[in-house]
């Protein structure tokens, strides 16, 4: 992500980016300024912003944390994102029109619901539900100092966010979704880590399902969408029950395949989609009762047929013995 920093961090860094600092940066980094073609595709009103922010090396070191804060916006990713058609100042304070950016602009705190609270068109995403879910999330309630200032943009890069395109392979969707979590939680994939050691076929799970499948509540109340919840659970409350997914119930399938659509089917063709689909989850067809009955009936029948065959063989031997 180009902008992994949460809201308050953004506020801090923008406060630090005073006119003096910016002027020095511009002098220093002028040589690496983005090529004119990189910003040419941007809406006219954004070109002024991207003149600086499209520079790949635009950054500063935060005085408080000592960390390098990246201010680079990739114009290509921005244009392809869900927000690509918006002008920068539609989200960011109008004061950002001016350079050097005045102090009054730097106090802004942006989040998704700020803009999306009144969706006019019907959408799969209920931002009110997401807000309610997020409020219960470990990210919103942890005492850990690392979660201070956590917000939507800590995970979702507003300058690059896009809905998984139709037909994107499930493996790629899983990989991209998990990359967001692993940006901060890389230690869980450490080969010597004991976390997830309990999980059978751990690596298969890591490539086939998103972290959020287990680390969010399985049951989504009926007034919410079937999208995965934004209530990220603490480790000890996360899903440890295999049959929540490995069963004939549908939540995992609905969540993973929310990305699929009829257009996807039309594009790949019925047969290709049928042969290479990934809809079957191990355990989906398991039933101890039917398995037990089925195997018992087949086993007993096999025994009965074998006995019948032996009887026929003996009868045949007998009748041959009687023949002159």
């Amino acid at each position, binding site marked *: 992500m180009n902008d992994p920093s949460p809201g308050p961090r953004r506020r801090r860094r923008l406060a630090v980016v005073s006119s003096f600092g910016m002027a020095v940066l511009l002098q220093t980094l002028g040589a690496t300024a983005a090529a004119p073609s990189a910003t040419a595709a941007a809406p006219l009103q954004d070109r002024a912003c991207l003149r600086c922010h499209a520079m790949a090396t635009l950054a500063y070191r935060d005085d408080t944390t000592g960390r390098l804060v990246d201010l680079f916006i990739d114009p290509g990713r921005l244009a392809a994102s869900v927000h690509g058609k918006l002008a920068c100042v539609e989200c960011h304070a109008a004061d950002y029109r001016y350079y050097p950016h005045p102090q009054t602009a730097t106090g802004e705190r942006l989040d998704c619901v700020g803009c999306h609270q009144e969706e006019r068109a019907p959408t799969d995403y209920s931002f009110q539900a997401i807000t309610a879910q997020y409020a219960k999330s470990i990210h919103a309630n942890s005492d850990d100092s690392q979660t201070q200032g956590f917000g939507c943009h800590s995970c979702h890069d507003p300058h690059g966010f896009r809905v998984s395109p139709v037909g994107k392979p499930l493996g790629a969707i899983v990989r991209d979704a998990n990359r967001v979590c692993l940006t901060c939680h890389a230690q869980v994939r450490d080969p010597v880590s004991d976390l997830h050691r309990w999980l059978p076929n751990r690596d298969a799970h890591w490539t086939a399902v998103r972290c959020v499948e287990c680390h969010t509540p399985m049951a989504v109340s009926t007034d919410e969408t079937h999208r995965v919840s934004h209530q990220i659970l603490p480790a000890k409350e996360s899903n440890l029950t295999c049959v929540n997914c490995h069963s004939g119930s549908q939540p995992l*399938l609905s969540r993973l395949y929310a990305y699929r659509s009829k257009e996807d089917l039309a594009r790949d063709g019925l047969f290709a989609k049928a042969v290479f689909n990934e809809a079957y989850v*191990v355990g989906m067809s398991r039933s101890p009762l039917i398995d037990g009955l089925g195997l018992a*009936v087949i086993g007993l029948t096999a025994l009965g047929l074998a006995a019948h065959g032996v009887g026929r063989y003996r009868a045949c031997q007998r009748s041959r013995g009687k023949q002159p």
Partner: protein
Amino acid sequence: MSAIYLYPRWLRLWHWLSALLFLVLIVSGVSMHYAGTPGLLSFKQAVPIHNAAGIALTLGWIAFVVGNLITDNGRHYRVQWHGLAGRLIAQIRYYGYGIFHGAPHPFAVTAAMKFNVLQQLSYVGAMYLLMPLLILSGWAFLFAFYLPETLFGIGALWIVAMTHLTVAYALTLFLLVHVYVITTGETPLTNPRAMLTGWHRETGAPLH
């Protein structure tokens, strides 16, 4: 020695192709259902094999139904209800008792009717009841993400899964019984040979 041409080329081709697909589907299906059990195919291998074989079986089944509609092979699947109980009892009595005592077969194969009543009922059940259920539930599995969440208040996917599983066990049982019963012709190889050559040949020698 009598010889009747009972199995046209298309029917024999369909039969042996279906037999092969049944075996592939059982092996790959068991590998998916009991994934992780040693000695089975890997789950990743089994899924596309099972899906492809299932699609081929569907096409074969459609060809079979169409073949029965446009040729006179379909007449063998029309159940004659008159005297059904008597013929059933005679057939069951033969398999359960007569076959061990050199009794004559209660049913004589003719060009008009090649199946005895038990064969006919089991084939009609397998081809016109179990196979459609297997195929429908299989395709519902393939496009499970388009299924409604619930059907009659029960999880739709669960209904599909349990139908597919039950029918799969039933058809495996059918295959097992079919392979055995087919050896109860005049000689154990009379019927399998007929399905290879198309000609049902009997010598009229005593039955075993």
